[in-house]
């Protein structure tokens, strides 16, 4: 090993070709950036899903419109929550009458603008639901209370804590009048922050406004289009029995079982995890392509570098460098390049991860294994793609190499 010298040399020669080095490293930077970002965030997402499955509620059933899907699982993708639906209030009522059903919360998803005086936020989800919602989903109030059964016709709104603090200041929000899609509502309750951007509610409760179904009807010209019905049973042991009953009731109401899907909460959580895995996989494939391209670029640059330095190699061999020492020198150069790219990619991933985590209230994961992977991957890329050029350098015939400029 001749590390110190090789190290200086490698750095020197990389520095001498800064632009070239930077451009070639770009592929590795992007690849590592994606991989690290996935690790940094998906660690958080997985933690969030695990938390959700653990806390919540193995006594919950979700009913969603199944659309065209054959398995029904796609209905539970977080991306699909607000889709057109065939579920009605009648279904909710029918389900609530099943034995061992404790509470039922139908949810109607509305988009639109929420205003408080001058402050206006577009594309805020408003959910129209009933009085059972907080108990079904196990929500705690930061202040105020949910509207009662007999208050469904009042212009009351309940806000997630983050939405409340964005719209008004949290401590002044209670009793304020806000405007949802052109209608005035009084804020009567604020939900304590849940920090669960992905939850069984299908929305980020912290950033959602809640109104009664009766009020929701005013926005849909009387059509009740329930996106999701959340059912809490009296006990987890009865879950599968209740599920059968729910399916029977809905089949009776709809005459066709493919229009809706019923899932236990646990299944949905794992469906979400599956969805996450799909996105992760796609990103990983992209990252791999990026690393492959980056690796080939590095191989190319290293080959150029070897060709440029044939005489140097000859000199080194003449003064006693072994094949292995020459190999090491050039491998080190390749690895320094990819590792440099890895460090930059990792840094960028944490910068981006920080912003995203802030946005979606995810925990940012700092774990030794993330660093190990984010640096181990470019290390391997450097070793793999640097090997051939380095071997070419090592196999130079010193006599030929020294003759080059004679």
């Amino acid at each position: 090993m001749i590390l110190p010298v090789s190290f200086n040399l490698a750095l020197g020669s990389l520095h001498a070709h800064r632009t070239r080095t930077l451009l070639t490293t770009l592929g590795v930077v992007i690849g590592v950036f994606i991989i690290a970002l996935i690790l940094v965030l998906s660690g958080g997402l997985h933690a969030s899903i695990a938390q959700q499955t653990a806390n919540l509620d193995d006594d919950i059933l979700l009913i969603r419109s199944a659309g065209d899907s054959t398995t029904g699982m796609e209905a539970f993708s977080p991306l699909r929550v607000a889709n057109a639906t065939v579920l009605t209030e009648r279904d909710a009522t029918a389900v609530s009458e099943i034995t061992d059903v404790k509470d039922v919360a139908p949810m109607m998803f509305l988009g639109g603008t929420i205003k408080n005086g001058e402050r206006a936020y577009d594309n805020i989800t408003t959910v129209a639901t009933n009085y059972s919602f907080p108990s079904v989903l196990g929500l705690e109030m930061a202040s105020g209370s949910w509207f009662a059964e007999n208050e469904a016709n009042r212009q009351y709104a309940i806000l997630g804590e983050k939405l409340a603090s964005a719209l008004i200041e949290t401590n002044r929000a209670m009793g304020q009048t806000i405007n949802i899609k052109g209608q005035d509502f009084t804020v009567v309750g604020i939900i304590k922050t849940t920090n669960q951007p992905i939850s069984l509610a299908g929305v980020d409760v912290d950033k959602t406004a809640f109104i009664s179904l009766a009020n929701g009807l005013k926005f849909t010209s009387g059509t009740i289009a329930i996106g999701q019905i959340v059912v809490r049973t009296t006990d987890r042991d009865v879950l599968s029995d209740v599920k059968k009953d729910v399916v029977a009731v809905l089949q009776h109401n709809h005459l066709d079982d493919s229009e809706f899907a019923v899932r236990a909460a646990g299944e949905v959580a794992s469906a979400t995890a599956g969805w996450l895995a799909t996105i992760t996989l796609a990103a990983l494939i992209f990252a791999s392509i990026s690393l492959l391209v980056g690796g080939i670029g590095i191989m190319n640059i290293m080959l150029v570098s070897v060709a440029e330095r044939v005489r140097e190699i000859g000199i080194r061999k003449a003064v006693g460098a072994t094949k292995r020492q020459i190999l090491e020198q050039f491998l080190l150069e390749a690895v320094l390049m990819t590792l440099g790219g890895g460090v930059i990619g990792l840094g960028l991933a944490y910068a981006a991860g920080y912003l995203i985590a802030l946005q979606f209230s995810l925990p940012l994961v700092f774990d030794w294994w993330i660093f190990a992977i984010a640096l181990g991957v470019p290390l391997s890329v450097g070793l793999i793609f640097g090997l051939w050029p380095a071997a070419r350098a090592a196999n130079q015939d010193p006599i030929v190499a020294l003759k080059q400029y004679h």
Partner: protein
Amino acid sequence: MATTSENTSFSLPVRSDVGRAFFAAPSTSSAPVIELRGIQKIFGYDDTETIALDKIDLVIGHGEFVAIMGQSGCGKTTLLNLVGLLDRPTAGSYLLNGRDVAKFRASRKARVRNREIGFVFQNFNLIHKLNVLENVALPLTYRRGLNFRHQQRASLLLKTFGLQNREYYMPYQLSGGQTQRVAIARALINKPSIILADEPTGNLDSQNAEIIMDELTRIHHEGNTILMVTHNPDLLSYASRVIHMKDGRIISDVELTENKAYSTATKFVSRRKNLRRRRGIRRTTKRSKR
């Protein structure tokens, strides 16, 4: 040194006389450093076959300064490459310090090059990205040990070359003569058994050539063994032995005792009539500079 050469400056074998007078004459009687037996080197085969070396027998003792002469293409570089373990003979045996090095594995040959051989090339062959100090220390970097220790050693060596204030120069900032002296320092850093110099003055003007030869003579008198290829008969007077090659064979091998050195030099003077005068002038100008 200057006072001695004052007296002898107009007698002929100037440099060797000076050296011998001042330093103890190197012993050539000890066990041989280099022992070549029936060395053959053939390039190519059939139509393209070239016999570059044809049954060379050569023994070089410790402390000899051997000059090799001969027309271009007669096999001088090939011989040096074989002795320097950069190339392998087609046939024959090569003992370096008594060991049959031709049979060594590549990595062991590299080790021998690293520890026992110093190369000086016609075109200097410094690594242009490294400064003078790093270039001189280069052979040491392929061994164990701390970098700064290596550079300390290189620094000490550069002092004996009077190059201590050029340590951090890059090769392109040096004159040709300085560059070659740095290269000689690099060849010397590992205290080699033999220094192989292939036309070390070939790319230099006569004044720089003389500086280089002075340097090699100094090293020779410090007890080093040198094998040098040259085209310049002027330089023969520095050597202790002259070998002439032709078509891959050694055609003459003359030990230059002081008398022989004198006569050889005279022979060349008679060939080139103005040599004597030229040398005299050169010495004078050089001395006046000092």
